[in-house]
């Protein structure tokens, strides 16, 4: 089958339209975020998940209920017909078609190496936590025990002998929070309670059906770069949602801010003399981006922004409705 033939087949039409549907849904989501000035991380996360979920279902549903959507007349009256761009011919090739294939291939590889393989590896390692670290249960550590006394839910919490500042959680059957011994020594009681509460939120929310469902749908769209990007944005909001959870149970915003600063924001090293290095390495860019993300979390916590309860479901619903309506005319 030729490439042109593939894009006229059902799988080809599905992939192309899912891409354009997610792109439009993503723009609609961005318009909504700006229009309502949405800052609540939970609402932002729901909005970012619309472009992840919508493209999975739209094309099959539209085809099922309105098969004539594929006809020449319908296509002529649409807002945007992807086929026109895909069939565009220059010097005997279809540049948009090939460009889309390239983008789909790169995104599939990114999904495979940055998401699927690490998740499988993580699942395997979580199944054998005993082998992974040398740890002690938290009741044996007086500092941790005192810090966690007031928390409403406590999963397994372990202290790992390590000189680095580490705190992380594993999910699934062996869900647990791991804290390094040096971090336990460095953080105050309140800071430690906030940091652990944040990780507990990750453990609790990892069982959230909406997030589990969103991840499965995102996996179906493994080829779609827009879905990849929007899912990562939603995942970034997850950190802020967990911050909010930690603040709600500890009632100590300041302690979480201090814990974040100690954990992730060591004083920056002075930049190297000019001229010696003109290009940033990938690691430096990643660190800078991580730092920006932490700074944004800190600034959010310090400003104590409200939860905007009035738009909790209104904005995601408006985005979903607009995305479905506009995408009906994107073929």
């Amino acid at each position: 089958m030729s490439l042109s033939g593939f894009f006229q087949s059902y799988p080809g039409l599905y992939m192309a339209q899912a891409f354009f549907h997610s792109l439009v849904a993503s723009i609609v989501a961005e318009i909504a975020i700006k229009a309502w000035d949405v800052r609540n991380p939970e609402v932002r996360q729901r909005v970012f998940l619309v472009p992840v979920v919508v493209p999975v279902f739209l094309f099959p549903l539209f085809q099922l209920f309105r098969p004539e959507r594929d006809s020449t007349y319908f296509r002529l009256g649409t807002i945007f017909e992807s086929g026109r761009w895909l069939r565009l011919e220059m010097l005997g090739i279809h540049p948009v078609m090939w460009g889309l294939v390239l983008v789909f291939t790169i995104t599939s590889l990114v999904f495979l190496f940055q998401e699927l393989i690490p998740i499988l590896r993580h699942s395997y390692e979580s199944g054998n936590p005993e082998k992974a670290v040398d740890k002690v249960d938290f009741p044996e550590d007086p500092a941790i025990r005192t810090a966690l006394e007031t928390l409403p839910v406590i999963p397994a919490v372990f202290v790992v002998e390590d000189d680095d500042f580490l705190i992380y959680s594993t999910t699934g059957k062996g869900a647990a929070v791991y804290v390094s011994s040096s971090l336990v020594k460095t953080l105050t009681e309140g800071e430690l309670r906030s940091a652990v509460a944040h990780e507990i939120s990750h453990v609790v929310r990892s069982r959230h059906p909406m997030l589990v469902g969103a991840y499965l749908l995102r996996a179906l769209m493994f080829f779609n770069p827009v879905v990849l990007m929007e899912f990562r944005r939603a995942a970034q909001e997850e950190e802020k949602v967990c911050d909010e959870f930690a603040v709600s149970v500890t009632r100590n915003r300041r302690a979480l801010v201090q814990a974040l600063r100690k954990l992730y924001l060591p004083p920056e090293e002075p930049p190297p003399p000019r001229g010696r290095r003109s290009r940033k390495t990938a690691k430096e860019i990643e660190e800078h981006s991580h730092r920006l993300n932490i700074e944004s979390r800190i600034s959010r916590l310090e400003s104590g922004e409200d939860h905007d309860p009035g738009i909790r479901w209104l904005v995601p619903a408006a985005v979903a409705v607009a995305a479905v309506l506009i995408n009906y005319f994107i073929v």
Partner: protein
Amino acid sequence: MSVKRTAFGFLAFAAGLAILVIALKTLNGLPLIAQKDLMRRYGDFEEMQTSLGIRGVLVPSYFPEDFRWPPTRILAQGKPYPAVIMEFERSGEGKDRGIGMMIYQSVEDNFTPGGPLEISRVRERATYPLKGRSAILDVGFCGSGEPCSRISWREKDLRITVLARLTPFELMKVAESMFR
């Protein structure tokens, strides 16, 4: 969040969506500027033939009462495969105006343009010899419940279909006149 802020949000959202739709519509028109042989509307039959270089398109020489040449609308494309759609409006007094006949011709056998005239229910299907060609004649009803007929046959490398709000007898006369 105050009601005022929510309402202002709705207005801003609606304005943003309007801009998005306009931008998409504009983007949708760009390939038509760059590539002339994509499906588009043509002013007349000659313009379509000159522009796409499509030869051998059959046209009827007989038109039943209420129909006449030239077509009300011509849509055609050169790629991904050549296809021409001609619409004829019904002009008789006391009858519904609107598209009463469509003739479409395409290299692809399964080219079904949809549009204003479609048989929603086929009552009878028969093979009919059309000047030495084997044609398929469908008799049924269009969306409005009005009787409709369709005849379709293969002519060299083209699949030709005539669909009209006409009796099968009138429709066959139109089809036969396309060979004169």
